[in-house]
């Protein structure tokens, strides 16, 4: 360094002119300056320092700082930048030495965070703040001093913005500006990624209400932490637009809003802010009120319902601004009323599990409960999104019931609706048989059918003119008669056969519906007295909502009259005076089926008679005066006898005459409005679906009966009055074709997958080939059972035993975390098993206490002179739980199938039109999707294994976990995840991670190999636990390539073999159609079919516990 000093020697005297700190600092600095500094550079540096010091009287201070920090600064940048840094300092010093001093002082800390190229700009920022006044100088100095801290959370760009903001604010007040600088330091780390928004908001504020800026900063510091980090930006934007829209007391509002938001679940921030954003367009001032009210409203409503409340508020707002504001403040009774109504609504989602069980219990069958739109989605003929209905196996109900003011009433309605739909199943609406006699009426169905066929035949033979007439008519009924002339006709369903009797299907269906619903209502009330009062209430409410009967033409009025009658309004039912006699006949017939033992066949007979009466009535307008009340005495219990003219009427139906009776100008019969709680009744379709399903099941067992054709189905659909096909002939064919397709799909949706899908081009060994040899170590050869030959195929399959590859161990822990609640519960349950495992062990030499029986025996022995047994103590000993279990996991390709999350997937087309609703819909949907991670069956299997291991380790059973798959008999893969004798280790965790779907499912050899493994294990109880997702299948795992039975029988044989070795087997499958083959496969061992794959982990453990306790 002395060298350098020498070079600089001639300059040193200059330094002496200034106060001592300058030279002192220089002397200290020169030692620390890098050696690489050339002489020239060194002297330049010194010259500049001297220059600074010499500028003004006070500038020596700046120079002192300059020297002090130089070594530090130069070490953090190339020399060229160092020059610039010096230049900037010098320029600043010209403005103000104090400023320059602050600049130099702040430099070392700042330079480490500042890019060298920003030096000038940075100096410029400080310079900009300096306006020559004392206050501005303080501000600028502080800016320099705080820069390094600020840069920790701001980019340079943002720092610039901040400086600009400070500058703008300083025009108003330096103090404020200075305070904001301090606050800025605290707040920026909190703002996260949204500093730009924050700064821009702050800058805006300066223009609009600069006095609030400080409180804005303070509020920001308090408010932001309360908000979901990802939503902070939107929060600030909201505040900004509030400012732009003339809002006042922004900081206060921000605090309030953030306070409210902090009361909400974080997930809801997104949605609530979304509403708030849209509200800004409507009325900015309402926005804060909305957010402030949100937590209060959400206490009573779900987030979805909040959307409805919000929508209502927006509507109010558009009519009346003050009213809207009051609404959002919840200061209007309208607002409260809306909340009340919404909160009293019953949502299907909430009560579904309970109601589904309820329906199952009532129906005694596997009834499912679904929202109505799920049925519409299937597109098999049901179109109403609102009406409750059933198609024979599922009860469809509305997603939300909010008809009444209280939850209780809504719930009661819901229950009545479900009960009514289940009643269709429970009391057999769909088991109608055409030829089964009715108990209450004389049976006229066959008679009528004969007559109709007769008539049709005559028509065909007799008049071509008449025939043409029929063909010209575009009524579907006449189409039918054409096709009918074949006479020897096969009906798909008995219901179809029944409705074929009638010319006007619509009318007959309506009558049938009313009578049948009436029968069910009466039956339900009789069987379930508990629900009677709600039922009656719902009925009378429905009665009030009926259309005005006086506006209906006569024939429709008669049907409407029946509806009202069936709603049990015995007093004062209006009927056209002209047809009083008919009305009372109808009433008498309809009432017959209200007895508890009435059947659907009785309904049919009643329908027939009522149809005969009503169809004879012309469908004409009735003058308003021409109506009279019909009173019925409920006690009227006379035996019904068919009136004498019934014969004539039937004759007419048989002839298909009623159409011809129709006078000119008469209106065509239109279906009457359905009764809401009874919903949509489609007996033909429902019966069809039921039969298709049964057919499907039969086919799985053994094929019998002729499968129905698409044409037959389409014909049924075209003729049925249940489809509202109001279109030209061509379109009818098109849409019925589509329905037919969908129905086929729906009924056959459960077809097993073709095994070919899962197979790639594998090494092929001819199936006709002979015995196989184990080609290498770790391979085993097993026989296979041929059930047709009733013998084993010797040495037929090669099982290749492999270790599962190892993956990441983290999967294990992550799964345990995911199921943490379940894990604790299972742990507890398994720990509870432990006391049961303690058993009193007797006849010990030493123990807890003496066993009195043994002691007495001992004494007796002594007395009788024989040698006593001294073992008379007992102890509670942990019983050796001697259980060995092998878990066999199906890892076939089909386990890669995604788990179908309910069937209510929402497609885009049901998106609401309204933009606000759309937004809500979109958000909720997105939210759902985020939660709904994509899971496959195999994932559930893996997760189950993790939980199982966790539980099994707690009780210390011997267990092994194996996966199996394969392709062809020579390649049955048997993966060891954990061998029976292996201890649980990190390796096992890693292997679980790698379980993945592979090829096909050849169960037999895998079971045999597992049996072999268990057989070589010493345990008193041995269990083989098979977890699969479908029937066994593999290439060549069949006889002649088609018989699925073959695989099932071989598997059964393998399980039987296991049993003979003293191994208990249990099959758990997630294949809903598993009943048919599992019955064969596991005839005398345990099996279970899981309804819901998501239950797998829990169910598996429950079963395991039950099985081994």
């Amino acid at each position, binding site marked *: 360094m002395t060298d350098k000093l020498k070079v600089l020697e001639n300059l040193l005297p200059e330094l002496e002119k200034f106060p001592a700190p300058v030279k002192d600092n220089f002397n200290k600095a020169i030692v620390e300056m890098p050696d690489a500094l050339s002489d020239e550079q060194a002297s330049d540096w010194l010259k500049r320092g001297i220059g600074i010091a010499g500028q003004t009287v006070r500038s020596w201070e700046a120079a002192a700082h300059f020297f002090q920090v130089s070594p530090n600064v130069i070490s953090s940048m190339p020399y060229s930048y160092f020059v610039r840094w010096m230049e900037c300092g010098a320029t600043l010093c010209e403005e103000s030495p104090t400023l320059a001093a602050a600049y130099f002082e702040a430099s070392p800390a700042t330079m480490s965070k500042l890019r060298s190229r920003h030096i000038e700009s940075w100096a410029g920022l400080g310079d900009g703040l300096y306006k020559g006044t004392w206050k501005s100088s303080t501000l600028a100095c502080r800016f320099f001093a705080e820069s390094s801290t600020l840069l920790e959370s701001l980019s340079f760009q943002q720092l610039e913005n901040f400086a600009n903001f400070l500058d703008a604010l300083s025009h108003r007040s330096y103090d404020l500006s200075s305070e904001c600088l301090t606050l800025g330091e605290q707040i920026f780390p909190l703002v996260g990624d949204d500093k730009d928004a924050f700064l821009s908001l702050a800058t805006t504020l300066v223009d609009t209400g600069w006095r609030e800026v400080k409180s804005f900063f303070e509020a920001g510091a308090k408010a932001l932490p309360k908000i979901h980090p990802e939503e902070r930006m939107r929060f600030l934007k909201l505040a900004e637009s509030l400012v732009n829209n003339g809002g006042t007391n922004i900081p206060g509002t921000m605090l309030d809003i953030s306070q409210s938001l902090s009361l909400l679940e974080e997930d809801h921030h997104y949605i609530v802010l979304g509403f708030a954003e849209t509200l800004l367009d409507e009325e900015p001032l309402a926005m804060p009120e909305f957010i402030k009210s949100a937590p209060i409203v959400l206490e009573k409503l779900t987030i979805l319902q909040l959307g409805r409340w919000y929508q209502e508020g927006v509507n109010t707002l558009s009519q009346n601004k003050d009213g809207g504001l009051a609404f959002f403040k919840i200061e209007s009774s309208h607002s409260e009323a809306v909340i009340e109504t919404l909160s009293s609504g019953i949502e299907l989602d909430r009560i579904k*599990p309970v109601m589904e069980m309820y329906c199952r219990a009532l129906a005694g069958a596997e009834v499912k409960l679904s929202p109505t739109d799920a049925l519409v989605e299937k597109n098999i003929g049901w179109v109403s999104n609102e009406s409750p209905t059933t198609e024979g196996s599922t009860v469809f109900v509305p997603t939300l019931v909010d008809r009444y003011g209280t939850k209780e009433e809504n719930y009661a309605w819901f229950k009545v609706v479900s009960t009514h739909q289940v009643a269709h199943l429970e009391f057999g609406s769909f088991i109608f048989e055409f030829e089964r006699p009715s108990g209450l009426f004389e049976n006229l169905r066959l008679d009528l059918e004969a007559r109709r066929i007769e008539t049709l035949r005559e028509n065909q033979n007799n008049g071509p003119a008449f025939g043409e007439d029929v063909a010209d008519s575009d009524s579907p009924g006449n189409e039918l008669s054409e096709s009918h002339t074949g006479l020897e006709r096969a009906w798909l369903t008995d219901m179809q056969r029944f409705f074929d009797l009638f010319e006007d299907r619509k009318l007959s269906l309506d009558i049938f519906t009313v009578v049948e619903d009436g029968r069910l209502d009466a039956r339900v009330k009789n069987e379930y007295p508990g629900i009677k009062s709600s039922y009656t209430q719902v009925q009378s409410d429905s009665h009030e909502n009926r259309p005005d009967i006086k506006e209906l033409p006569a024939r429709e009025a008669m049907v409407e009259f029946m509806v009202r009658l069936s709603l049990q309004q015995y007093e004062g039912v209006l009927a056209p005076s002209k047809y009083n006699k008919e009305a009372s006949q109808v009433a008498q017939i309809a009432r017959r089926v209200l007895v508890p033992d009435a059947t659907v066949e009785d309904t049919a007979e009643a329908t027939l008679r009522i149809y005969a009466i009503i169809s004879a009535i012309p469908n004409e307008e009735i003058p308003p005066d021409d109506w009279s009340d019909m009173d019925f005495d409920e006690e009227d219990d006379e035996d019904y006898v068919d009136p004498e003219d019934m014969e004539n009427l039937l004759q007419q139906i048989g002839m298909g005459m009623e159409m011809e009776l129709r006078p000119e100008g008469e209106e065509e019969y239109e279906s009457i409005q359905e009764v809401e709680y009874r919903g949509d009744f489609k007996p033909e379709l429902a019966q069809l679906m039921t039969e298709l399903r049964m057919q499907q099941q039969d086919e799985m067992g053994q094929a019998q009966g002729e499968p129905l054709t698409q044409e037959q189905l389409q014909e049924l659909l075209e003729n049925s009055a249940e489809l509202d096909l109001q279109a030209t002939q061509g379109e009818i064919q098109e849409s019925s074709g589509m329905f037919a397709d969908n129905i086929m799909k729906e009924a056959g949706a459960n077809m097993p997958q073709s095994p070919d899908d899962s197979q790639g081009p594998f090494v092929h060994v001819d199936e006709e080939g002979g015995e196989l040899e184990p080609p290498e170590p770790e391979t085993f050869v097993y026989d296979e059972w041929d059930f047709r030959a009733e013998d084993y195929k010797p040495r037929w399959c090669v099982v290749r035993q492999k270790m599962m590859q190892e993956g990441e161990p983290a999967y294990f822990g992550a799964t345990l975390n995911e199921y943490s609640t379940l894990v604790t519960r299972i742990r507890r349950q398994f720990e509870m098993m432990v006391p049961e495992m303690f058993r009193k062990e007797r006849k010990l030499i030493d123990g807890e206490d003496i066993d009195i029986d043994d002691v007495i025996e001992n004494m007796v022995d002594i007395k009788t002179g024989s040698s006593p047994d001294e073992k008379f103590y007992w102890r509670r000993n942990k019983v050796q739980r001697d259980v060995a279990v092998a878990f066999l996991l199906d890892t076939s390709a089909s386990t890669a199938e995604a788990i179908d999350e309910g069937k209510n997937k929402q497609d885009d087309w049901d998106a609401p039109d309204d933009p606000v609703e759309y937004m809500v819909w979109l958000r909720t949907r997105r939210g759902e999707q985020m939660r709904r991670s994509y899971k496959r069956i195999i994932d559930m299997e893996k997760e189950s294994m993790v939980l199982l291991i966790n539980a099994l380790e707690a009780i210390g059973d011997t267990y092994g976990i194996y996966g199996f798959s394969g392709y062809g008999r020579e390649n049955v893969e048997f993966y060891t995840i954990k061998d029976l004798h292996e201890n649980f280790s990190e390796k096992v965790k890693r292997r679980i991670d790698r379980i993945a779907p592979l090829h096909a499912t050849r169960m037999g050899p895998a079971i045999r190999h597992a049996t072999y493994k268990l057989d070589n294990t010493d345990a008193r109880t041995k269990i083989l636990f098979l977890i699969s997702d479908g029937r066994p299948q593999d290439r060549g795992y069949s006889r002649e390539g088609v018989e699925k039975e073959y695989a099932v029988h071989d598997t059964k044989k393998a399980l039987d073999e296991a049993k003979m070795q003293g191994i208990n087997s249990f099959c758990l499958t997630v294949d809903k159609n598993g009943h048919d083959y599992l019955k064969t496969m596991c005839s005398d061992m345990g099996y279970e079919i899981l309804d819901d794959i998501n239950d797998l982990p829990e169910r598996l453990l429950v079963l395991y516990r039950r099985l081994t306790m």
Partner: protein
Amino acid sequence: MTTQSLYKSFIIEEYQLDVEPYYVPIQDEVELFEAAYKQKLPLIFKGPTGCGKTRFVEYMSYKLGAELTKVTKNDADDSAVNLPLVTIACHEDLTGSDLVGRYLLEGDRTVWLDGPLTRAVKAGGICYLDEVVEARKDTTVLIHPLTDHRRILPIEKRGELLQAADGFLLILSYNPGYQSALKDLKHSTRQRFVSIEFDYPPIDLEAQIVEHEAGVDKDTAYQLAKLGEKVRNLKEHGLGEGASTRLLIYAGQLMAQGIAPRRACQVSVNWAITDDHSLQQSITEIISSIFE
């Protein structure tokens, strides 16, 4: 004066039923039982809990006892020939000597005390081993020689072989609902018995039973039976066992005492059969539909 004993005490082999127990045959079980008894074939009763297995044994014991009495009435002796009923509830600590008998000390001497099985064998009564799967497997083997043509009970400690008296019949009951691999009857045991399967009676009969046993009116009894039927529909959906006839009778008895029907069903049926909250709610809905 000594206090009069407030309870009745029976010597095991003298216990018999004085009053005819109420039993409604569901199928041909009465005929089967009679035939088996005449042929001295031991029986196994399988069936869910509370469906009337024990009651059936009591009923048959009374019925057969009464028939025996009738036949032998002519004997001068006044005492009726009886058919005692010995019931043994099995548990996992039940040992062979608990069944057969053991020596006891009395003063300086030892006294042999017959176990209940031995006493039934000697007295020629019906021995009913309830819930036999609970007993240890080594214990159940003990009954093997009694159940085949030999009809003998070896008493090792005394070096005796006991030939069963004529009227002796062994009956086991067990509930196959367990599905536990550890608790199952050995085949060698099982195949010595004629099996009669029991299930809950059909709704009409069950109503009749509930009506009689609980003392409620016909309608209520029918409703209770309907409740039973509906709840049993849920058996595969999380219910381990359906509501037993016994529970339905309990509910009826509570109602007969004036408890409101819904409440009675709640406490005796709903809460008795499940702890699952959602299932309880479903059953509550069923109850509230059936009962006012």
